[in-house]
């Protein structure tokens, strides 16, 4: 017994020493990082907000990690403005910004904040917001800046049974919420249905103030659905489409197409008029993001670097043979403000 106690004591000492050493070095690394200014060239927000721009989440491992940044659309790899606003996901139009953020705690809390940008360079004003029941996943602001959509991911958090579902809301900024989209009338393949396992995520808005597109998943299939806020309905129009994003001219949907085993997503584009799909296999990484349009022929999305918490925003032309390139280093969640 005494030998066992000695062995146990030795294990305790080794484990404690090892874990403590790791934790201390992680703390030191963290402190070094959070006191380091970003390596990127910076400029003022006023400068950037004078013209078309791209907002994003800054992912450089420095003091501004997770903060919203902005670059000029004309010089995406040029100087960036960095704000103090922390967001997991960000989207923006000319005068409105949606920010989904995690407030860390013993149990984390999640919040959607709607911000208004009135004068270039002036601090963003909080105009509306709501608590979220789960982990931020996607957000979009309508082209007129009046509607905001958020998808969060509710995990059952239960003691014995775990579950999973998404919760997608559309709200009028400063107005009423349209509620959980799972309560909208759902028409799949022309038939009105009410499946139990429906999940809805990844909204993109058209510019008429009522039409939107979303992913509807049910029965192991994912559909592209066209939604109508006035009729409170969702109607599927294509199969095998996830996280749609409507092009600025409103003619095409960019999305991620799941591979065979459902774990590798390839960016693709669907022509709404003809139904023609173009899979952009020039991107070989799995793209798990809601794509943003840089212009009518170029897609933007975030991709994590190998073994790092740093990600970059990549640009990919919508022609079949195109190969992707890094557009904004150390960034994710791009939002183009034209």
């Amino acid at each position, binding site marked *: 017994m005494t030998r066992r106690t000695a062995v146990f004591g030795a294990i305790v000492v080794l484990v404690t020493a090892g874990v403590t050493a790791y934790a201390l070095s992680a703390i030191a690394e963290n402190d070094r990082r959070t006191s380091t200014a970003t390596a990127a060239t910076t400029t003022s927000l006023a400068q950037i907000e004078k013209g078309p721009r791209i907002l994003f989440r800054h992912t450089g491992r420095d003091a501004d990690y997770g903060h919203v940044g902005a670059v000029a659309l004309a010089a995406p790899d040029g100087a960036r403005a960095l704000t103090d606003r922390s967001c997991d996901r960000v989207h923006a139009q000319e005068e409105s910004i949606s920010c989904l953020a995690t407030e860390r705690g013993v149990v984390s809390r999640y919040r959607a904040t709607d911000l208004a940008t009135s004068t270039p360079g002036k601090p963003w004003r909080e105009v509306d917001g709501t608590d979220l029941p789960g982990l931020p996943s996607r957000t979009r602001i309508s082209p007129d800046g009046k509607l905001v959509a958020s998808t969060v991911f509710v995990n059952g958090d239960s003691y014995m049974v775990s579950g999973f579902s998404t919760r997608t809301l559309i709200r009028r900024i400063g107005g009423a919420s349209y509620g959980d989209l799972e309560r909208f009338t759902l028409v799949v393949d022309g038939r009105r249905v009410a499946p139990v396992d429906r999940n809805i995520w990844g909204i993109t808005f058209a510019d008429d103030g009522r039409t939107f597109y979303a992913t509807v998943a049910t029965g192991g299939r994912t559909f592209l659905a066209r939604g109508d806020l006035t009729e409170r309905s969702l109607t599927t129009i294509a199969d095998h489409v996830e996280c749609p994003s409507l092009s600025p001219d409103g003619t095409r949907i960019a999305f991620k197409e799941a591979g065979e085993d459902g*774990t590798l997503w390839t960016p693709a584009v669907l022509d709404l008029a003809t139904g023609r799909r173009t899979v952009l296999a020039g991107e070989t990484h799995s793209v798990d993001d809601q794509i943003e349009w840089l212009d009518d022929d170029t897609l933007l999305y975030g991709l994590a670097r190998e073994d790092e918490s740093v990600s970059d925003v990549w640009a990919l032309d919508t022609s079949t043979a195109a190969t992707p390139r890094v557009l904004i280093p150390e960034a994710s969640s791009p939002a183009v403000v034209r």
Partner: protein
Amino acid sequence: MYLSLSDRPATGAEPRQRDGRVSRTVVTLGIVSLLTDISSESVSAILPLYLTAVVGLSPVAYGLIDGLYQGVSSLVRIAAGWAADRTDRPQPVALAGYAMSAVARLGLIFAGGFGTISAAISLDRVGKGVRTAPRDAMIAASSDPAHLGRSFGVHRALDTIGATLGPLLAFVILWRIADGYDTVLVVSLGFAVLGVATMACFVPFRTGARAPLVEPGERQRASVETNTFRWRAALTPGLLRLTGVSAVLALLTIGDGFVYLALLETGGFAAQWFPVLYVGTNLAYLALAVPMGRLADRVGRVRVLVLGHLPLAAAYLCAATGSGMLWTTCAAVLLLGVFYAATDGTLAAVAGQLVPETVRASGIATAQTAVALARLVAATGFGLLWYAVGPRVALLAVCAVLVAAIPAGLAVMRRALVVEPVETPAGSRS
């Protein structure tokens, strides 16, 4: 037939605690569970964030991983129970289960993609499935039968302390180190290793073993002789009734997730508090596990096990009727904790009593697996009902059926106990 077997004196095994104190082995197993739960729950707390924010998996991919959690564990549980009985050595089987989960933590540190992460998580769940029944068999073997309920209560209370400390630890680390996910994983591995070490060093190899250690040749013969009817021996009429009753009640156990979601739906609290609800349930479970175990020892374990579903029915009622009132939310959360305190450990205690000692782990595993599978069915079925008639009506319907099922369950179990007297070693029948 099994009676002749169980009448064998339990020589060689750790002596049962007889003086009314909780056995050292039970406390040690509780500490092992505490350490292991700190390890697993600290990771569970950060896993959704880690997978989506750092590894970059979408909610859907995470859902797939989460699904893996559920099925894997039940399948291996019976096999592990059988292995523990067959070898008559629950300790090494349980130890292997704890070790698997520790290896899974190591795997998670180095995992980078969907495939490796799901492999690591599956291994963790297999480990959990492997260790549960042999461990519960050891608790039963090391306890005074008169205080079995309390023993399981002590074990589950320690286990739940770990489950509560884990997320707290993860929070402290992430508060100090903004993207300290790796640190959480390393610390978690440390606790898993300490759990395995505690088990290996302080829970004797032969804990829960029935037969004395004999010469290899002789042992071989003994195994051959007794193995042929092992599996059927576990399926005593009493255990079959228990399994049936528990499974039916489990079919009406829709899971905390749905109760919380129904509360969210009826507006009982702000959405921001959604993630905190399970902490309340955990705390109630933690506080009541031992008192409920004592109560079970005094008034009858079967009674507490079956009647323990009344607080569950009350929780459904609170969630269904309490529109927007804070106290109904609190009540529902706490009632769920009462339900777990009354039923989780008690199920293992009763199952262990209703089968001969030779097949105790198999018997416990059978009842636990039936409950786990029935709860999976319940969750799916309730999902259907929820969408068909809405949360309120669905909850009230399940609540009504559950209230009706409880006296029926009691009646069936009462007959079971008459048919099948509680199995205790000679001399301690009470």
